[in-house]
């Protein structure tokens, strides 16, 4: 597929994911829409432009893996897996209902396509690292992608994993940081600052690059494996906007787990076209 076609496909999927995710949150009156919307362009790029997988064989040994370390952004993850064909659309309507497969945080035992259970922050990197080491041990070509929030990087377990990944030169391991600069209560830099984030990863033996996390073409370039592969793990710092796509949500920490009323839902649906 030509790159422009791929970019257009990803944009269409991302729009569908935003509308579906916001509808799920509105119906459930639960969820984390701000973080869903900052991450959706990244996840859509992975599933519809980068990763190799077969939704009919979720256990395929050499599949590329995606781990949603910011597990609370289930609106983004569940809509992506649905759009990728892992399960039918009517499952989305059960979001957070009693006994739903779509729990408030993802559970791999409930849903095909979920690689590991996340929710408590700082878990995705070590698990992703283990997956990447397994691939290295058997000389497999699969790639492992982990998406963390930026505030999440305050958890020390991430840096334990970052050290090991750098030392093992895991070129098949990619971390994407959803850098929306807001955590639950306030800005990351006024809470426990992370900058300069790219240099931190370079100091741990990684390649690091900074992109606009809503520019699909730029994300594609950053996430596509170069010919010959990589000799170090890659950190893509994706500068994003919490609540991206809905005017009244953008850059508002209160939309971390805010939920819309009917009027807000209607306005968002008018904007998400």
């Amino acid at each position, binding site marked *: 597929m030509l790159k422009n076609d791929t970019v257009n496909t990803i944009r269409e999927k991302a729009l569908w994911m935003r509308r579906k995710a916001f509808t799920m949150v509105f119906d459930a009156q639960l969820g984390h829409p701000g973080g869903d919307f900052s991450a959706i362009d990244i996840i859509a790029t992975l599933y519809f432009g980068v990763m190799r997988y077969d939704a009919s064989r979720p256990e395929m040994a050499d599949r590329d893996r995606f781990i949603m370390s910011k597990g609370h952004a289930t609106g983004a993850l569940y809509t992506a897996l649905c759009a990728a064909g892992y399960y039918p659309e009517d499952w989305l309507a059960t979001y957070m209902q009693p006994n739903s497969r779509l729990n408030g945080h993802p559970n*791999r035992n409930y849903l095909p396509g979920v690689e*590991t259970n996340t929710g*408590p922050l700082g878990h995705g990197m070590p*698990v992703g690292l*283990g997956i990447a*080491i397994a691939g290295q041990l058997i000389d497999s070509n699969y790639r492992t992608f982990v998406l963390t929030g930026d505030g999440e990087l305050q958890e020390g*377990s991430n840096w334990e*994993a970052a050290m090991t990944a750098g030392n093992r030169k895991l070129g098949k391991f990619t971390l994407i940081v959803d850098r929306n600069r807001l955590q639950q209560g306030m800005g990351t830099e006024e809470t426990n600052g992370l900058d300069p984030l790219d240099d931190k990863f370079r100091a741990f033996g990684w390649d690091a690059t900074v992109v606009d996390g809503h520019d699909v073409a730029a994300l594609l370039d950053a996430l596509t494996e170069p010919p010959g592969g990589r000799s170090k793990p890659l950190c893509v710092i994706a500068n994003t906007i919490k609540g991206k796509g809905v005017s009244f949500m953008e850059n508002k920490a209160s939309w971390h787990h805010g939920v819309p009323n009917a009027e807000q839902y209607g306005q968002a649906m008018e904007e998400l076209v």
Partner: protein
Amino acid sequence: MAAPGAKQEGFYDCRDAWAKTLEDLAQQDPRIVAVVNDSVGSSKLGGFQKKFPDRLINVGIAEQNMVGVGAGLANGGRIPFVSAAACFLTARALEQVKADVAYANFNVKLVGQSSGVAYGELGPTHHSIEDFAWLRPLSNITVVAPADSWETAEAIKWAAAHEGPVYIRLSRMPVPDLQVVDRKFRPGKAELVRDGGDVTLIACGTTVHLAVDAAGALQREGITARVLNMATINPLDETAVAAAADDTGAIVTIEEAGIRGGLGGAVAEFTSSHVPVPVERVGFPGFVPTGSVDWLFQQFGLTSPGIVDAARRAIVRKRA
């Protein structure tokens, strides 16, 4: 009675059986890998590392990462044995054990070394007497505390073949081989070491041989004691506990662990709901003072005389 920490003829460090068994299994199955936190020596995995250098993954002093990596290796089709001092493995990385291993239900084998009070004078930071209480509520983790070298080897073999999370709790204190004929390791089942009708001594790990000694001492007083080796703490063999309550009317639990939430806790939970009988729990009431392993065992009654005393108390209570 032999002091538990002493080197003595006929007593063996179960870590040797663990290491040899893992090497043999790894020879047969390329999926088996070991994950450590700079704990190659204390896990006795030097031989494994020599034979399978790529399959010994040392993440350094980073327990959260170590357990998460174990889960990831399982996702990638490996069979990881994550081995570290029990105190750090189960306490420092408890959320990873809960979320990444148990809740995610990955095929990870956690091996806690030098558990209980094996580190003696190093104190409660290095003791692991809370691990049973922390892991038992994670209902899908099978928790096994082998009593001797043979059982250690069998438990490791079983864990490698079993699909699902397992915690195997080892010591570094030498223990004698149990004298039981026709042994077969059955996960989730108590092993009848000796039968009796007046009281049942339920022990696990390093304390089973002490319970056997105590049963011998009770016999000389005319009291017959059943001894159960309850190697599997979770799931508890409720059938064996119910039979012990029905047949003997009094139970003593003995474990190198805290008396709250461990083997004694499990037995007390079950009996109080289903077969109420006196239960005396021998173990540690909380953080222990400074002292050697031997002294701590003496101090807290993890000795043949201490178990005999507990048995007498249980028997008195059932007659009350």
